Structure formats: C-alpha cells, structure tokens
C-alpha cells in the first residue's frame, strides 16, 4: 500500500495530499482537516473531563483552551500555562485516547512528542477518509 502525504515539509508545490497517483483537492483536504479537528476536540474534552471532572473541563473551555485545540503548539502552550508539568501527562492521555479511536498503537514507554503524535493521527485520519 503506497501513500504519500503532503505536509509542511512536503515538496508538493500545491501542498496536496496524495493517495497513490490521485491528488486530493483542497475541498476534500478541508473536509478531512475539519473532521480531524472535531475528533481531536472531542478526544480532548473526554480525556480532560474523565481525568479531572466536568467542572474543570467547563472552566478550561471558558478560558479558551479548546478554541484552537487542533493547533498543537497553541494547545500545548495553553496547557502548560495552566498545568505546568501536568500538561505533559494530559497530552499523553489525549494522545492515548486519540490513538485508541484511530486504531494506532500507543506505547507509553516510548519517547513522547505531542506534535508528532498529532501529525501521525492526522495522517491516519486523512487516509481513512480517503478509503471511505
């Protein structure tokens, strides 16, 4: 199975996402990104809500934590300003839950990179949307 995925470091001039020789147009890409963003926000809500309760989740929502949840850098920054060292633990449970939803293996012993983990999940989500 061969897939090539255009991303920030892609050499594809139109930054398209390709499945074999078939490029994905920007409308499909937008739909896939919107779908991934929705999955991610739901996962963050569920993971934080289950760990710290729904009162905490509501406070975090009011503070705008979930406004740009699909922007991993921004989310990471906000999470660190609120939770300090605990942010990394929350990110791990978010990624663990996200991987479970998408059927990606999660290894809690492996080195953890939130941004890379989200990028992998996004690519799997895009490929799955192409197969539907």
């Amino acid at each position, binding site marked *: 199975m061969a897939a090539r995925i255009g991303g920030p470091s892609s050499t594809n001039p139109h930054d398209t996402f390709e499945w074999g020789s078939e490029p994905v147009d920007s409308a499909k890409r937008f739909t896939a990104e919107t779908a991934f963003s929705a999955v991610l926000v739901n996962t963050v809500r569920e*993971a934080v809500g*289950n*760990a*710290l*309760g729904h*009162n*905490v989740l509501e*406070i*975090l929502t009011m*503070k*705008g*934590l979930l406004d740009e949840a699909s922007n991993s850098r921004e989310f990471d920054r*906000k999470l660190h*300003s*609120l*939770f*300090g*060292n*605990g942010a990394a*633990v*929350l990110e*791990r*449970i978010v990624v663990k839950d996200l991987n479970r939803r998408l059927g990606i293996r999660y290894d*809690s012993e492996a080195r953890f990179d939130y941004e890379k983990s989200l990028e992998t999940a996004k690519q799997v989500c895009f490929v799955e949307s192409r197969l539907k």
Partner: protein
Amino acid sequence: MSGGDVLSTLLASEIRADLLVLFHRNPGLIDTVDGIARRIGRTSITVNADVGELLQLGLLKQKRIGASEVVYLDRAKDRQILESVANHLKTINIGGEK
C-alpha cells in the same frame, strides 16, 4: 494542601492520570490493586506507588473484603478534591500569570 498542590499530585504521572480516568469512568469500581493494574494495562508493581499517593490524598480508599484488600473511589472526597482543582484553575490566566 492548596489546589495547585493537589493538581500536581493528581497529574504527577501517566499512571496516576490513567487511574483517575479509570475511576471517574467507573465510579462504583471496587477491585484489588492487581485487578486495577490489569484494567489499565499495567502490573501491580508499576501502579503501587501511584495508588498509594491517591490513597494518601484520600481520593481512593482501601478496605478488606474476605481475604482481599480492595481499593475504591471515595466519591465525596473526589468531588471535594476536584472542586479545589477547579477553584485553583479559575485563578490562573491562560497566558500564565495569576
């Protein structure tokens, strides 16, 4: 213990967060440490210290049933602990300063 200290204790490790998720998803759960460890895909040796910290915090309680020592969520204490965390987070700006 301040809300910030409580939050640090709750999120001190991935295992502790897994335990929180497990008990909040299953608030009526009563099981041995060994059973709890298996439910989160770990061994009792690796979860012992984290269960101990949550027992010390009062979020979990321990009692003997027959020959087994079991652990369960103290729902009233859990509500109280999460309330203190919520009150602490209310005071923090997302930019970082209180």
